[in-house]
């Protein structure tokens, strides 16, 4: 039996707005196995970004159960959540979100700083990962000296540096052209084959087609959850 890395049951999220309580997620149930490759889809306002934030421990649900790696997140305090974000989850954002003043090497090392690794270990690990994403020759460049696709590779390297079980990618190709997007998706495919669970939020079908499973949100609820046919055929 495959292990569940994510188990969500009866999850609600409300936002307090001046106009009153606004429900964003309503009774979401989802289980994700280790090594799965999930695309989360839906139009804007469907709650998929909010869901992503909760998955990433950046936000807490109003109600419901969220177990990450068999551990209930509800009872964790701020420091423990920070530790999960640091060790268990790797984030990739649409806007890359690199620190513009720091070199690529320092950008990739940043999660290790908060994991209290020594400088030499940090540099070592970060260098290996930058080489893995094909940027070994730009260690000391600044983010604004490289292209968008390359910046996203740096962000992926940063997400990987603490060897997380899960990569959460929020519209990772949203700012990229289609050719570069394919390259980035190839990288994700490769990582998934290495056994990392990958969850991608996207509204583009051809991006979602890379995943083995598609979950569709509408008005705060999951309306569709299916395996990609291609994957099914392979299985």
């Amino acid at each position: 039996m495959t292990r569940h890395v994510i188990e969500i049951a009866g999850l609600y999220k409300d936002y307090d707005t001046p106009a009153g309580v606004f429900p964003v997620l309503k009774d979401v149930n989802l289980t994700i196995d280790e090594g799965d490759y999930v695309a989360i889809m839906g139009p804007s306002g469907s709650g998929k970004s909010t869901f992503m934030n909760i998955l990433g421990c950046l936000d807490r649900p109003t109600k419901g159960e969220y177990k990450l790696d068999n551990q209930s997140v509800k009872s964790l305090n701020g420091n423990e959540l920070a530790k999960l974000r640091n060790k268990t989850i790797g984030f990739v954002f649409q806007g890359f979100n690199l620190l513009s003043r720091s070199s690529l090497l320092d950008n990739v090392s940043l999660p290790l700083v908060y994991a209290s690794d020594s400088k030499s270990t940090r540099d070592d690990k970060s260098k290996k990962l930058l080489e893995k994403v094909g940027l070994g020759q730009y260690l000391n460049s600044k983010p604004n000296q490289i292209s968008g696709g390359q910046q996203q590779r740096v962000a992926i390297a940063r997400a990987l540096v603490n060897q997380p079980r899960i990569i959460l990618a929020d519209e990772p190709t949203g700012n990229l052209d289609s050719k570069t997007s394919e390259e980035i998706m190839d990288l994700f495919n490769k990582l998934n084959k290495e056994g990392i669970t990958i969850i991608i939020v996207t509204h583009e079908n051809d991006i979602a087609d890379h995943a083995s499973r598609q979950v569709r949100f509408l008005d705060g609820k999951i309306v569709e959850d299916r395996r990609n046919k291609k994957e099914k055929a392979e299985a």
Partner: protein
Amino acid sequence: MFFSMLSEAWHAMSANRLRTFLTMLGMVIGVGAVVLMMAIGEGAQQAIKRSIDSMGSNLFVVLSGSSSTSGSRSGSGNSSALNINDANAIGDLDDIGAIAPISTGNAQIIYSGSNWNTSIVGTTPSYFSIRGWNVDSGNLFTDADIRSASRVALVGKTVVENVFGDDIDPIGKTIRIKKSPFLIVGVLESKGQSFDGRDQDDTIIVPITTAQRKLFGNQIPGSVRMIMAQAKSEKYMGVAEDAINDLIRQRHNIRENTESDFSVRNLTAMAKTASDTAKTMSMLLGAIASISLLVGGIGIMNIMLVSVTERTREIGIRMAIGAREKDILLQFLLEACVISIVGCVIGVGLGLGGAILVKKMVGAEILISMQSIVLAFSVAASVGVFFGYYPASKAAKLHPIEALRYQ
């Protein structure tokens, strides 16, 4: 962890050099002002303390009152009310340790080609023990010199410099005071300035009997200008002052409700007032300077708040990849502290430089104590923590999602 944060703080600061410099300038000026003001204030206190020590401790001066001649009143010490017997009577009081009768006047002195006008003090050997004054070379005169009214003199450093210069040893030389020859038996050690600013070394001391008979011959025989009296210890000062007053009034047959023909001055109390004034001045200077330190601190807070707002997105990113609240707090706190401590180091340097400049240009005495530097340093560090804490905690309390969305 700490060092990588320190280096990040340094990076963040060097990213906006002008702004960091201007923020730092507030601390530099504040700390510089505190160090400078404390150096000047403590220097002044030091100068006063030294002149008080040079005066002797637990001292009274009994001055004869003013004299009136055809309605024109002269100042204190000009009547001839006090005499040697008054002095001896005071010396017999229980609370008084020692007395020295004094006759003074100014006179022109001559040695070969040079001449000089200085104050002449006629007194007894106990004067030197009361004032804690000794010879630098040669000997003091003795009671035998008093009895025989011998023409011997002790000269102060300033007199030596002006009359003899550096090359001549004055001991054994004969000078003329008001045309009478005097043998120099000793050179007095330097006393420096008195607390009221007189040069105490510009003087010649001779036996009181000689002074009365040979130099100030127009005075009533046996009269003295003033009597210096030393109480046995500080706690007898009050009792001694009353005792002297009663004694002299009685000796001079002064009736009740009549003004005394003498006055008693407590020199120690006067000196204490001068020293307290200097202390207050010094504290006031320090307090005013500290205000600029406060302003510098507010400058740091202001810039840190701007910095937190500017870097909201960065804070969001850091939180998303695992920074805890305390990591963010520490990062911004460290930045504020680095600014204030670097500013403080420069400020201490500037303050010391300024103090040396003041000493060179104005000639004012300055005293740079380790204590004032340590104080400035710890105040600067606490200013950094105090004014850096609010912006840092504001940064640490940001919600990761809102911070990430911030444009």
